[in-house]
């Protein structure tokens, strides 16, 4: 199988390329803006693996939630790669990357969206593999603390700063996601036949509904 996959939802840019038994993974953390680094990294990856986009069986793409600007670069690049050859796409929730390689029974991955608001997703575990319990959400710290989060679940954060607002909860800092983890997610999805057409590829846009609710409440306007 030959495939490519990227995740550009955070400052950690992940790239994976597989050409049959050859695998190449690249992680660029804080190296620069995705608008600068993603395309050359994809090009170099294909060169090292000596494969062309035409031969790919599918392309994997993280769709957030996370940095909208980063996701635009990633998703639009994947659209450009896939479009000429109608290559199937596997989209995945970027938060899933953070859930891997933890030995827990249930957990919630947390990623700060903006001041006082977090993206979150709940998981249970089959052995060591995380299985999402529901779609990711986006809520205020207050709302999370007063109902969404339970004391059974371990909170998984990407770094210490994002953990600060949740003193008193069982929490841990996620292992930095690796291209290998991305590989597990997309291969599993591909084998389950979960490909989509590249035209359907779009990011999670969870902040919207919250914003709209707030707006309507304020302005009595229907969306």
């Amino acid at each position: 199988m030959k495939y490519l996959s990227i995740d550009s939802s955070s400052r950690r840019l992940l790239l994976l390329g597989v050409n049959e038994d050859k695998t190449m993974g690249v992680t660029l953390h804080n190296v620069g803006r995705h608008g600068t680094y993603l395309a050359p990294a994809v090009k170099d990856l294909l060169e090292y693996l000596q494969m062309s986009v035409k031969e790919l069986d599918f392309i994997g793409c993280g769709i957030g939630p996370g940095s909208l600007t980063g996701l635009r670069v990633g998703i639009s690049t994947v659209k450009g790669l896939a479009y000429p050859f109608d290559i199937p796409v596997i989209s995945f929730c970027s938060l899933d990357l953070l859930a891997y390689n933890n030995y827990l029974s249930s957990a919630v991955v947390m990623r700060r969206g903006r001041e006082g608001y977090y993206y979150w997703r709940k998981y249970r575990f089959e052995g060591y593999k995380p299985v999402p319990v529901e779609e990711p959400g986006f809520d205020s710290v207050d709302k999370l603390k007063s109902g969404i989060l339970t004391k059974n679940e371990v909170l998984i954060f990407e770094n210490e700063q994002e953990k600060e607002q949740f003193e008193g909860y069982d929490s841990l800092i996620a292992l930095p996601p690796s291209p290998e983890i991305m590989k597990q997610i997309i291969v599993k999805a591909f084998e389950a036949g979960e490909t989509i057409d590249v035209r359907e590829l779009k990011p999670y846009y969870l902040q919207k509904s919250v914003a709209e609710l707030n707006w309507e409440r304020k302005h009595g306007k229907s969306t």
Partner: protein
Amino acid sequence: MERSDKTFYELGGMNEKAVRHLAFEIAKRLEGGEILLLKGDLGTGKTTFVKALAEGLRIDPDDVRSPTFTIVNTYVGRNLTLLHADLYRLSDPSEVLELDLLGLLGPETVLAVEWPELLAGFIGKNALKIELEYEDEKTRRLKLSGSYKWIERMVKDFFKKERQTKEVK
């Protein structure tokens, strides 16, 4: 005057020079990451304010233009980059979210927003809100509020320089 846990200052009788002066003082205290919300009717001087703010950041004020149609203008200053937004043409919050303004704000970026009402729900406490009102064709009343620690100091320094102002706390 309404009391809150935020500082709150009202500066009346401000002519254009005074308005620009204030913006300049504020610019000197910016370190990066700050948000300025400029609220006011058409022509009250929001863009004029941002021009002077930019000048304080060593940006040529003639390069600072109204972002009404461009929505966001970016100016690179000596130490900081200024993002100058204008939400006049936007109609709902999802349009604002799509701009990813907060995602573009970094430790070396400052954000100034004209017509900021649509942004209200998204900004936490950390912002400087500046309201501009007409007193007459050449004079404005400015109301400052926000939780940045340097606001009080800045207003005091500003008073030392200006004469036609009244402080109400």
